[in-house]
């Protein structure tokens, strides 16, 4: 092994370090993509926040593109009077960030929170 390393070192000294960027085209490459949003929830408090028609239309657009896009009034519960299971995480994130805000989710985890989102920001989630 040692003679091979010495030969390689000698070649690098004589001819320089080879450009290996071309290898990317034929070597197998693993691309790590950022997680894609699969759900968003706009959390608000009805006494303080009005939901604009354009915002509701944006949620509807996302729903039709395959993203679960919903509205959550801060006081909403399930039939047992508890915070609905699907909203436990996003509600916690929203309350921490301050209402109204859009909580963007992927695979059951919070990706990011957008304060007081516009319709354009909501549609841009996809």
């Amino acid at each position: 092994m040692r003679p091979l390393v010495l030969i390689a070192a000698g070649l690098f000294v004589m001819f320089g370090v080879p450009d290996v960027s071309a290898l990317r085209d034929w070597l197998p490459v693993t691309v790590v993509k950022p997680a894609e949003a699969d759900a968003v929830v706009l959390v608000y408090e009805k006494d303080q926040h009005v939901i604009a028609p354009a915002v509701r239309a944006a949620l509807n657009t996302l729903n039709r593109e395959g993203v679960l896009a919903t509205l959550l009034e801060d006081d909403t519960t399930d039939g047992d009077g508890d915070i609905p299971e699907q909203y436990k995480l996003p509600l916690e994130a929203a309350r921490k960030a301050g209402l109204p805000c859009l909580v963007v989710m992927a695979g059951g985890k919070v990706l990011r929170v957008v304060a007081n989102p516009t319709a354009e920001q909501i549609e841009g989630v996809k």
Partner: protein
Amino acid sequence: MIDPSLIDVVLPDDGYPAHLAAEDTRDVLWDVCGNASREFPASMWIEPKDWEAKARENDRHKAWAMQALDRYTNQGPSSHECTTHSLRANFEAARNRARGVIFPEGPRKDFTYTDSGRFGSVWLSPLSVYAEANPGQWGGANVRRVLEIAVRRGMLPDKVQPRDYQFKHVLQGTSGAGNSNQSGGRWVSMRDFPSGWEQTAKLFRPLEVVFPESYEQAVCLVLHGYAVSVGRSGHAVPWCQWMPDQRLMAYPDSYNVTRYDSERVAKSAWRGSFSIITTTVPDSWEEPAA
């Protein structure tokens, strides 16, 4: 231009007689709804001079309560259930709003949106409330009674749904004729409800109900995309859209048709009205029966 025959329609003996309507004052409704009662949110006030612009904005984005509804109901020929049919429209509009879905053309006769099942729309049974509100079947029920029942123990799903949600307990939607999106059937008393029905009904309860203190507040609620249920001329209906050109209130009547109240009638009808702002929602929108 709206067909004049659809404006200010008076139906004979429909289930909201004057002696029952007289009990539906704001104070009484506030009391019976208990913890669910809410004042009109100041944030929702819109100056009358701005109503038309807001209505145009709603038109542009299809943001009316009318477009949160995906079906008519049909209590005809006459089942006296109108206050509960108005209640179900009010509830379903609020629930579909929370789901974030818009049905672009609103209710359509003899038509089922494929999106209804896809987006988890649940069709509720007015009869599941009326059977308790008036065990005698005939003569109607007032808003006080039906709202108290809905807040306390909820409504059962209809036997007909846009998708098979695997509900454990369902009931026919009406003892009237029904339609392709609402089951009709025989009158049923509460003792014949399916065993354990309370477990399913509690999943469909109004959580926050606002009682307008003026005609203007009622219009504001409609302009914000909420339904406002009112009673007038012996019949109860849910206002779901305000039309600025003729200043009409449009409502999906419980006879497979959209009708309209003129401003004159609307100004006489807002007392004793209510708007459901939030409802219970499921732990998963995919599984509303769980």
